[in-house]
C-alpha cells in the first residue's frame, strides 16, 4: 500500500517542481524577502523594523504558499484526469484512495519543505537585522524584551456590573427614560439591558480627572521568577488633547497592603504617551505578591490631563510576561501556517475530484479569502440570520463553520506583538483545521473519487 502512495507523492512533487510551478513562487520569495529585509524601516525604530519585516515577510510567504498549495493540489489531479495519465495509473494495482492520499501527501511534503526553507530564511534575516543596523544599546534591549521573546498574557477579570445595570433600569423606568413596556416585552428588555451593560462597563473602565482606576491580577507567575513584566495598554479619551497625548501615573504592587506605612515593593511610573496607540511599561517582577497577586493603578492627574481617560474593552489592558523563546514561538507560528496549507491542500484535492481546473481554483480562492475575513463573514451571517432561527442554526451555520477561520489564527500577529503562541493553542487550531475540517473534506473527496467514472464521456 505504502509503495504506491509514496510513488504518487514523489511524482506529485516532481510535477510541481518540473512544471516550474514551484520555481515561480520560490524565485519571487528569494527576491522579495531580502529586499524587504533591507528596505523596510517600519516606524524608524529597530523594533518597528523587525516587526514590519516579520509581519510582511511571513504574511507574504504564507500567502504565496497558500496560492501554491491551491494551484498544485488542484492541478495535480485535474491534469491527470484531463491529460488521461490517470488511465495508466489506476489500471495498476493502485486503489483510488491511495492515489488521493499520495497526491495530498505530495503537496503537503512539498509545502513542508518550502515552508521550512523560507521560515528558516526569514528567521535568519530577522536575527541578522539588529546586527546590521546601527542602533543604541537601549534599542537592542528593547527588542530583546519586546520582540525577541514570547510572552503570555493576563487580563483582569471582568467587572460585574449587573447590579448597577438593574439599578439604572429601575431608575429609567421611574423617570420615564425607559418605556414601561420594556418590563413585559422581552426583546425590548434585552436590548435595553445590553445597552445599559455596555455603558456601565465603559464607565467602569473610564477615569475622570483626579480619580484612579484599579486592576487586579491573580496567579501572575512568570516562567522565570526574575523576569520583568510588561503592562500593555492603550489610552482613549473623551476629548482629544492638543498634542494627542495623555500623562499616565501608574502604580503597581500588592495594593492590598497599602496603608499609612507601605512595607512592600512598589513600582511607580509616569510618562506622557500618544493616545490610541499601544504602550508598554516594564514592571520589575519583585512587585508581585507571594501569592501571585498584582494590583495596577492608574491615576488621572487633573494638573496634567483635562479629559476622561478610557481603557476600551477591545484593546483593554493586560500584563505580559516572558513564557518562551522567540525561536520556539517562530517555529509554532510556522506550524500554524502549515495547518493552513494542509487545509488548503485537502480543499484543493477535494474540489479537483469533481470540478475542472479553473472552477476548482475559483472555488478554493473564494474559500481562502473568505477564511481570511471569516470573523466579518460569521458576524454578518449571524446578524442577517437572526430571524431565521432554527433553520439557519442547523443548515447554513454548520456549513459556514466548515470554512477556515484564518484571521483568528494569524501567525504574524503573535510574532509582531511577541505574544506566546502556546502548544495548546496550536494544538487546538490544528485539531479543528487539520484533524476535523481537512479530514472531513478529504474523506468526502475519497468517496466522490471512488465512485467517479474516470473515462466518462458526456454526449
Amino acid at each position, binding site marked *: 500500500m505504502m*509503495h*504506491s502512495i*509514496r*510513488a*504518487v507523492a*514523489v*511524482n506529485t512533487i*516532481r*510535477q510541481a517542481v*518540473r*512544471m516550474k510551478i514551484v520555481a515561480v513562487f520560490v524565485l519571487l520569495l528569494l527576491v522579495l524577502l531580502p529586499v524587504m529585509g533591507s528596505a523596510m524601516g517600519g516606524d524608524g525604530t529597530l523594533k518597528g523594523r523587525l516587526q514590519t519585516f516579520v509581519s510582511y515577510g511571513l504574511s507574504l510567504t504564507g500567502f504565496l504558499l497558500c496560492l501554491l498549495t491551491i494551484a498544485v493540489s488542484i492541478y495535480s489531479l485535474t491534469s491527470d484526469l484531463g*491529460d*488521461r*495519465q*490517470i*488511465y*495508466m*495509473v*489506476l*489500471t*495498476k*494495482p*493502485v*486503489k483510488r484512495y491511495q492515489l488521493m492520499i499520495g497526491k495530498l501527501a505530495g503537496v503537503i511534503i512539498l509545502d513542508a519543505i518550502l515552508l521550512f526553507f523560507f521560515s528558516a530564511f526569514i528567521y535568519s534575516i530577522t536575527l541578522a537585522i539588529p546586527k546590521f543596523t546601527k542602533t543604541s544599546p537601549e534599542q537592542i534591549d528593547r527588542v530583546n524584551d519586546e520582540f525577541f521573546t514570547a510572552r503570555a498574557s493576563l487580563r483582569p477579570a471582568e467587572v460585574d456590573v449587573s447590579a448597577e445595570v438593574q439599578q439604572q433600569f429601575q431608575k429609567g423606568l421611574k423617570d420615564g427614560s425607559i418605556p414601561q413596556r420594556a418590563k413585559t416585552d422581552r426583546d425590548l428588555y434585552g436590548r435595553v439591558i445590553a445597552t445599559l451593560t455596555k455603558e456601565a462597563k465603559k464607565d467602569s473602565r473610564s477615569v475622570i480627572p483626579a480619580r484612579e482606576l484599579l486592576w487586579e491580577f491573580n496567579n501572575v507567575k512568570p516562567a522565570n521568577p526574575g523576569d520583568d513584566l510588561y503592562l500593555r495598554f492603550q489610552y482613549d479619551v473623551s476629548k482629544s488633547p492638543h498634542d494627542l497625548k495623555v500623562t499616565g501615573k501608574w502604580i503597581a504592587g500588592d495594593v492590598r497592603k497599602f496603608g499609612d506605612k507601605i512595607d512592600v515593593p512598589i513600582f511607580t511610573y509616569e510618562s506622557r504617551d500618544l493616545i490610541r496607540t499601544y504602550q508598554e511599561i516594564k514592571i520589575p517582577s519583585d512587585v508581585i505578591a507571594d501569592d501571585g497577586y498584582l494590583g495596577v493603578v492608574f491615576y488621572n492627574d487633573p494638573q496634567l490631563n483635562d479629559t476622561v481617560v478610557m481603557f476600551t474593552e477591545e484593546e483593554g489592558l493586560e500584563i505580559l510576561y516572558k513564557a518562551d523563546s522567540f525561536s520556539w514561538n517562530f517555529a509554532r507560528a510556522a506550524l500554524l501556517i502549515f495547518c493552513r496549507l494542509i487545509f488548503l491542500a485537502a480543499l484543493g484535492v477535494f474540489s479537483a475530484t469533481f470540478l475542472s481546473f479553473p472552477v476548482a481554483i475559483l472555488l478554493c480562492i473564494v474559500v481562502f479569502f473568505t477564511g481570511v475575513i471569516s470573523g466579518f463573514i460569521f458576524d454578518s451571517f449571524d446578524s442577517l440570520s437572526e430571524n431565521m432561527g432554527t433553520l439557519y442554526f442547523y443548515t447554513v451555520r454548520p456549513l459556514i463553520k466548515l470554512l477556515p477561520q484564518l484571521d483568528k489564527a494569524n501567525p504574524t500577529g503573535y510574532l509582531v506583538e511577541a505574544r506566546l503562541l502556546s502548544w495548546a493553542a496550536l494544538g487546538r487550531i490544528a485539531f479543528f483545521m487539520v484533524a476535523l475540517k481537512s479530514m472531513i473534506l478529504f474523506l468526502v473527496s475519497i468517496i466522490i473519487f471512488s465512485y467517479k*467514472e*474516470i*473515462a*466518462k*464521456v*458526456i*454526449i
Partner: protein
Amino acid sequence: MKYAIETLSLTKVFSDWWGRNKVYAVEELDLKVEYNQVYGLLGPNGSGKTTTIKMLLGLLHPTNGRALVLGGDGRDTNISAKIGFLPEESYLYKYLNARETLDFYGRLFGLPAKVRKTRTEALLDMVGLTAVANRPVGTFSKGMARRIGLAQALINDPELLILDEPTTGLDPIGTRQIKDLIVQLAKRGKTILLCSHLLADVEDVCDMIAILYGGKIQEQGKVRQLLELSEKRQITTGHLSDKALGDIEQIIRHECSEFEVDSPMEKLENYFIKTVARAQQEKAKTSGAVSTTQISSFLKNRSGSEELLDKLVSADVSVSEKQDIGANEQAEEEKTQQPQTDESMLDKLTSSDQEFTVETKQVEPEPIRQIDEVNEDILDQLMGSGDTSEIETEDERNRGDFNDA
C-alpha cells in the same frame, strides 16, 4: 477460471447532461478470451473497442452486464497487478524521462528497487530507447512515446496484456517490431487482447478475432477459419518453364475450370523494411529516427535478448507485495547473475508453451513467415554479421526449410 477475459451481456450507454441515454457504445457484449490466446478486437472508429477495454479495467462503469478479467474485477488490485495495459495513446507524464517513467510504474507495482532497475534497463533496451533514457518523454515523437508506453505495460511481467491500438503512430518497422514482440510474448504464455482497426496488425498476430460494429460483435472466430477460402487452393513455386505451366494447367483444368497464373506480390511492409534497411546499411543521412530495430534484434539474438526476455517474463512480480522484499531482491540478483536459473524457468514455461505454439502455427497466417524472413535479412545487414546459426531457433530453422523449398 476458463477465460482470461469474459464479458456477460456487457452494455455501456453514454448519456447527455440531463442523463438521457444517447449512445449505445457497447451493447450486450459476450466476449470470451481464453488463456494464452492473442485475441483481436477489430472494428471501425466508434465501434466500442476502447469502451470495452475501459470497462474491463474499471475506468468506465458498465450500464448493464459484467466484465471479468482474470476471473475478477479489473479494479481489484490483485487482478490489476497481473495486467499490462497500453491505452490508445501513451498518456505519459511529460516531465519524467523514459527511465523515471518506467521506474514510476514499477513502483506502483511495488517492485523492489533492484528488480525495478533491472527491468527498467531491460525494457529500455528492448524498445530501443536506452540512448534517450534521460530525455523527458514530453519531447518524444509519437512512435517513441508508443514504445515507452509498451515498455510500461510490460514492467510487471503481466499475465494479461491489453493493447489498445499498439501500433498507432509507429513507422512500418516499429509496427513490425511490436507485432513480433506480441507473437513472442504469446509463445511465452501471455494472454493478449489486441484492439485495433488496422486489419493487417490483427491478421498477423491474432489467434482469434472479433469484429465489432455498433457496440455488437458481428463476427468472431479463429483467424484462419474466418479468412480461409476453403473452396480454393494456392500453390506457390519457384520459376516454372512454359512447358511445366502448360502441363500443370492441363492437370488443373481436368479438375476444375478456374486457373490463374501470376507472380506473387511482395507485401509493401516487407518491401519498405528492406529498402530502409538497405539505406541504413549504406549509411544514408536522415533526420529521423535511426535505430529502430531493437525489438527485432532483441528477438533474434538469442544469446543476449532471450536472456533479456527471460528476465522480463520470469521475475515473479505479481506477488511481490506478499513476498519479503529482501528475498525478492536476492532472487532477482541471482537471476541476473545466473542465467542458468532463468533457463530452467524458461524450460518450464516453454514446455507448457509447446502445445500452444503448435496450435498457433495452425492458424498462424502465412505473411508472418514471410516477414520474419525479411527481418533476418535486415538484421544481417544492420548487425553486419549474418552468422546467427548458433542461436537459431526451431522456428527459424523451419523457416529456413521453408525458404529452401
